[in-house]
């Protein structure tokens, strides 16, 4: 059934409203209102006698549509509207609201030409990235400033807080780090064994595993796991504190959020990540030794001897020295993104994701730089 029927009625028009006029029918009413002719002059009588349960929203759509067609309160309006047949009680209220509504409801701004838009977008991007870079440098500066403060005011070093984060980011990560390091080195050793066996060079699997684990894989895997676990936790924890105004509350109490929230996390990771790396190294070697025994029948004693021949004195340190650097990167990215959260829950999710992705990227980038550096200085 039609919700509205328009009839020519002598000089003017007659609009019969019928059927269900509640909110439930608004889709149909909206469509039929859109189909009304664009030019109506003279008088228009709205007949409500057959409309059932008129709701506010459908009546509002009718009134706004009519005023778009030129209906007005004044005698000079192009279309004079009269309501008959028991119009809904809310119609007076809605008519008043409609009239009081500012006529120009912010017309959508004209679209910019494509090229101009693209250049503008580029400019905005440059400005945004520039601001971002300077904010990141500023953030780093604040951390350094607090570290400087520790020497004059030892209380700025929050030992309990650091301990808590060492526990959460380090101790609780031991099982997963150990397991992953073990499994990955088993995989690498297995792949190596398959290839090297062809040349009868089975024993070099030991070289492959030990050098690979100690120099690269142990520390890199650990850093990536920690970035996923703790980088996101740092960002989310601080982000929620920002949304609850807790960070502002700290500032208002004269406390430095960098000192209370950021530095303990950075220091905790600097301590925890190298220790986790040592565990990952040990488990990686264990995995290599196990696979060598099972697949290549190299007994552990022989594995150990070969291991000592394969390693240079610096191999272990070449991996471990990277750990604190990765720790600083992960902790800084996580806390920095957390501090950027404002306004909404979506922002929190976005920045937590950014924190994880960016810290993993930074870790791998730094690892590549280390590889080049170590190659140059023959470390």
């Amino acid at each position: 059934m039609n919700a509205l029927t328009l009839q020519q009625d002598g000089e003017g028009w007659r609009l019969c409203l019928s059927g269900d006029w509640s909110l439930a029918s608004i889709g149909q009413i909206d469509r039929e209102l859109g189909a009304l002719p664009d030019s109506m002059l003279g008088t228009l009588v709205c007949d409500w006698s057959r409309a059932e349960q008129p709701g506010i929203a459908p009546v509002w759509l009718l009134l706004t549509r009519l005023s778009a067609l030129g209906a007005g309160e004044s005698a000079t309006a192009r279309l004079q509207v009269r309501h008959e047949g028991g119009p809904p009680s809310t119609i007076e209220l809605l008519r008043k609201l409609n009239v009081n509504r500012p006529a120009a409801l912010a017309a959508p701004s004209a679209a910019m030409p494509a090229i101009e838009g693209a250049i503008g977008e580029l400019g905005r991007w440059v400005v945004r990235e520039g601001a971002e870079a300077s904010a990141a440098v500023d953030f780093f500066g604040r951390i350094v400033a607090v570290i400087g403060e520790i020497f004059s005011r030892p209380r700025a070093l929050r030992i309990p807080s650091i301990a808590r984060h060492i526990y959460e980011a380090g101790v609780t990560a031991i099982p997963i780090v150990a397991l992953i390091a073990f499994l990955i080195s088993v995989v690498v050793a297995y792949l190596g064994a398959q290839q090297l066996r062809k040349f009868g060079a089975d024993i070099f699997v030991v070289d492959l595993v030990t050098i690979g684990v100690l120099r690269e894989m142990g520390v890199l895997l650990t850093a990536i796991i920690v970035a996923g676990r703790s980088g996101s936790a740092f960002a989310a924890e601080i982000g929620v504190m920002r949304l609850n105004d807790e960070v502002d509350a700290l500032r208002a109490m004269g406390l430095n959020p960098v000192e209370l929230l950021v530095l303990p996390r950075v220091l905790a990771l600097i301590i925890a990540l190298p220790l986790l790396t040592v565990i990952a190294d040990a488990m990686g070697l264990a995995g290599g030794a196990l696979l060598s025994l099972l697949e290549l029948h190299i007994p552990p004693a022989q594995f150990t001897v070969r291991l000592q021949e394969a390693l240079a004195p610096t191999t272990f340190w070449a991996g471990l020295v990277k750990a604190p650097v990765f720790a600083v990167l992960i902790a800084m990215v996580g806390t920095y993104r957390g501090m950027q959260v404002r306004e909404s829950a979506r922002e929190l999710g976005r920045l937590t994701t950014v924190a994880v992705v960016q810290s993993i990227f930074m870790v791998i980038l730094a690892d590549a730089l280390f590889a080049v550096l170590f190659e140059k200085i023959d470390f």
Partner: protein
Amino acid sequence: MADSTAKPIVRVHGLVNRFGAQVVHDGLDLEVRPNEIFGIVGGSGSGKSVLLRTILGLRRPQDGTVELYGRDIQRLSQPERLMLVQSCGVTFQNGALISSLNVAQNIQLPLREYHPMSEKALDELVQLNLSLVGLPPDAAGKYPAQLSGGMTKRAALARALSLEPKLLFLDEPTSGLDPISAAAFDELLLYLHTELKLTVVMITHDLDSVFRTCNRVGAIVEGRMITDTVDGILQNAHPWIHEYFHGPRAHAVEKGAHD
């Protein structure tokens, strides 16, 4: 205004809510009649918000029944529940606007979900709801974080009104507002109550608001509810109620009312 003979819209009977050993409601009864503004008062921790959550079906009580429009909300099928939810508007204490959507999108959220219509019509309805609650048209594009406390409360009300409910639940609608904004909110509530024939259940600590708007008041005392008209409850001899309505914070209100 309120029809005292009609069937109650909200009826709560023998409600018991416990958190561990702590008993919040202990056989609470409540009836809200059509077309009245019903105020719920009670001390902090007396379970006002818990009561609201129970009525809305967001919390299952340990015992007792809740009926909305004569239907037990625990025994509804999913489609019936959905119908019922759509006929109740709710505002939460802190507005609970979805922070990643702007005001217009917040208002459109339930409309889009239940009543498909053109984008233009949706925009028109945003303007309708904004003007109903007295927000300027340009509030539509703002995000919740950009709104003041008073605007947030109004925007939440606009969202609650968007499905044209006949029953409105408000949790502390005037808390955190300055007296002028709070008074304006009271007037808005009275206006909507008369114009749209709404039944309102309002949790409030604001005595001015109670005296200005409410037809009847229910006080949660010792896990039960004492219900009376505003004048009646002022005469109530219960020590807590007496203290609540006649304590030092209440005198200014009373004086103002009698001037």
